[in-house]
C-alpha cells in the first residue's frame, strides 16, 4: 500500500533587476519560480525613458541627430543613417557617392562594434570570467579610436548630416580603416576560438530560448533574432537603401532559433561586415563632394510623412517622420527592434531554468534606451 504525499510547494516570485550584475541596462524582470523552473515572467520597462521623441519635436533636423545617437547608444551610426535617409527621402535629396560610401563603411564598422559588445556581455552572462569581454573591447577600442579621429567623439558621433556628412574624413582614412579591419579579424578569430566549439557553451546554449521561424515572424522579430530562426530576411537585401545594392555579402542564417544560433549568426555577420567594408574601401571614389548641393542653412523639408527602415545590429530600426513644412519635425517616431523582442521574452524563458533566463535575455541583445526612448 502506498501513501502518496503531496508536497506543498509555493512559487517564489522575485526580481531580477533593475540593477543587473550583467550589463543590459535598467530592465526589470519579475520571475515566478517553481524550484528552479521559471513559471512566469513579467518584464517591466520604462526606467530609461527620457522623452527622446518629444525632445526631437523641439529641435530642428540637425539637432535631432544627437538624440538619435543617444537612443541607440551601441550602434549610433546605424540610427543616424536611418534618420538622415528618412529626411533625405522627404526632401528628395541625392547624396554624393563619396558620402554614401563613407557612410556605409562607418555604419558597418559600427555594426561590428555593436556585435562585439554583444559578445562581451553574452560571455559575461555565461561566466567566462572577463576574458572575452576584454578581447571584444580591445577591438572595439580600435574602432572607437578610428571614429574619434574622424568625427571627434568616441561614442556619440553626430557625424552624419542631412545630405551627406558633417566634414570630410582625414587623409589617412583608407589606410587606417584597412589596418583596423585587419586587427578586427584577429579579434573575431579570438572570439571564435574561445566560444564557438566550446563544449560548455554548447551545453549551456543549445536548445535554450527557442523561437522557431513561424513564431518569430508572429512576434515581429527582425534582424539576427529572425535570421537565427531560419528566415532569410535582411533589409539590406529586401529593400536596399544607400549603396547596398552594389555590394556583395552573404546573409548568415541559423537553424533552430536558439541562443547558440543567435550567437553564431552575429559572429558571421561580423565577418560579412568586414567583407562589406573592404569592398567599400576599394570602390570608394578618391575625392568628391560630401554634401548634397543646394542646401539651405536651415532645413525645411516639404510637408509630408515618410517611414524609413534600416537593418540595425539589433533588427529593423524604423523612423516615422511627419513634417509640416517647418524647421522642426512634427512627429518623430522610432520603431525599435528591442522593444518587439522583449515582448516575446516571456515565451522564450518560461519553462527554462533561472540561469537560462539570464542567458536568454543576453542573447536578445537589448539596448534599453531604444526600448524606452
Amino acid at each position, binding site marked *: 500500500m502506498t501513501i502518496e504525499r503531496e508536497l506543498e510547494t509555493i512559487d517564489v516570485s522575485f526580481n531580477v533587476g533593475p540593477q543587473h550584475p550583467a550589463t543590459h541596462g535598467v530592465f526589470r524582470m519579475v520571475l515566478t519560480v517553481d524550484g528552479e523552473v521559471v513559471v512566469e515572467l513579467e518584464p517591466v520597462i520604462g526606467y530609461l525613458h527620457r522623452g527622446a521623441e518629444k525632445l526631437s519635436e523641439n529641435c530642428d533636423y540637425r539637432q535631432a541627430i544627437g538624440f538619435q545617437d543617444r537612443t541607440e547608444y551601441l550602434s549610433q551610426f546605424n540610427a543616424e543613417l536611418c534618420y538622415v535617409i528618412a529626411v533625405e527621402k522627404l526632401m528628395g535629396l541625392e547624396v554624393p557617392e563619396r558620402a554614401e560610401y563613407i557612410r556605409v563603411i562607418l555604419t558597418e564598422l559600427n555594426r561590428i562594434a555593436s556585435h562585439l559588445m554583444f559578445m562581451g556581455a553574452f560571455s559575461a552572462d555565461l561566466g567566462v570570467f572577463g576574458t572575452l569581454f576584454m578581447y571584444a573591447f580591445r577591438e572595439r577600442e580600435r574602432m572607437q579610436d578610428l571614429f574619434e579621429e574622424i568625427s571627434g567623439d568616441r561614442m556619440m558621433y553626430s557625424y552624419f548630416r542631412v545630405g551627406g556628412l558633417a566634414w570630410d574624413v*582625414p587623409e589617412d582614412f583608407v589606410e587606417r580603416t584597412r589596418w583596423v579591419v585587419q586587427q578586427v579579424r584577429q579579434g573575431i578569430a579570438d572570439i571564435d576560438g574561445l566560444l564557438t566549439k566550446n563544449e560548455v557553451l554548447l551545453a549551456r546554449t543549445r536548445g535554450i530560448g527557442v523561437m522557431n521561424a513561424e513564431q518569430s515572424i508572429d512576434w515581429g522579430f527582425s534582424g539576427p533574432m529572425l535570421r537565427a530562426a531560419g528566415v532569410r530576411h535582411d533589409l539590406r537585401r529586401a529593400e536596399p537603401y544607400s549603396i547596398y545594392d552594389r555590394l556583395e555579402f552573404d546573409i548568415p542564417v541559423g537553424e533552430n532559433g536558439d541562443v547558440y544560433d543567435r550567437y553564431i549568426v552575429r559572429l558571421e555577420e561580423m565577418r560579412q561586415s568586414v567583407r562589406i567594408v573592404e569592398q567599400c574601401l576599394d570602390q570608394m571614389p578618391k575625392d568628391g563632394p560630401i554634401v548634397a548641393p543646394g542646401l539651405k542653412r536651415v532645413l525645411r523639408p516639404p510637408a509630408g510623412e515618410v517611414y524609413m527602415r534600416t537593418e540595425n545590429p539589433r533588427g529593423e530600426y524604423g523612423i516615422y517622420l511627419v513634417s509640416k513644412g517647418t524647421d522642426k519635425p512634427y512627429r518623430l517616431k522610432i520603431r525599435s527592434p528591442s522593444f518587439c523582442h522583449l515582448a516575446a521574452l516571456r515565451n522564450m524563458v518560461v519553462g527554462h531554468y533561472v540561469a537560462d533566463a539570464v542567458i536568454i535575455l543576453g542573447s536578445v541583445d537589448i539596448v534599453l534606451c531604444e526600448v524606452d526612448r
Partner: protein
Amino acid sequence: MLGLFRALSTTLSAVLRKPVTVQYPAVHKELPHRTRGFPVLLWDFEVDEPFCTGCQVCARYCPTECMSVTMKDNPKHAEGKSKRRKIVDRFYIDYARCMRCNICVEVCNFDAIVLNNSWSGHEVSRYDRRDLVYDREDLLAESKEGSLTNPFREPLGMAHSGWSPKPRGEKAEEEEPSGE
C-alpha cells in the same frame, strides 16, 4: 574536449601578446586632432578682446540649451581700436548639460567658439555640479594663456550644408569653402 582545448589555446596565445592597457593617470594617450572636448571661447590676440560678439546664435542652436549669452557695446570700437561693434558681456556654459555636439562651432559666424581638443577639455571633474558652470573668464582662460594651439575647425561650408558666408578680411584663417 576539442572545443575546450581550442578555448584554452586561444587564451594561452593571448598571454604571449603585449597588454593593451596603459596606466591612465600616469600616461595620457595622444588625442586625435578632431577630438571634441568641452567648448571654450577664443581670444583675439591682435585686438586683445574675445572674438565673440555675443550674437547668441550658438545659444539658440544648442540642443540642450546650456548657454546663456549677453552682449554689450564694445568700448574699444568707440575708441577705434576694434572693428567689432558689440562684444560679449556675459557668457555661461553649463558643462554638465553640454553634449559636445559641435553645433555651436558650426553656426558661429565669428569663429569665436571651438571645442577644446586637448586633455584639459576632457578632464573636467568637480565635486559640486554648480562648479561646472563656466563663465566668460573661465572659458577664455585656455585660449588666453596660449595653450589652445590647434583647434579643429572644419572647412567652412561642410557642416553648414553647403552654405558659406562671404569671406571677411580679418578672418584670414578660414580655408576656402570646399563644399561643392
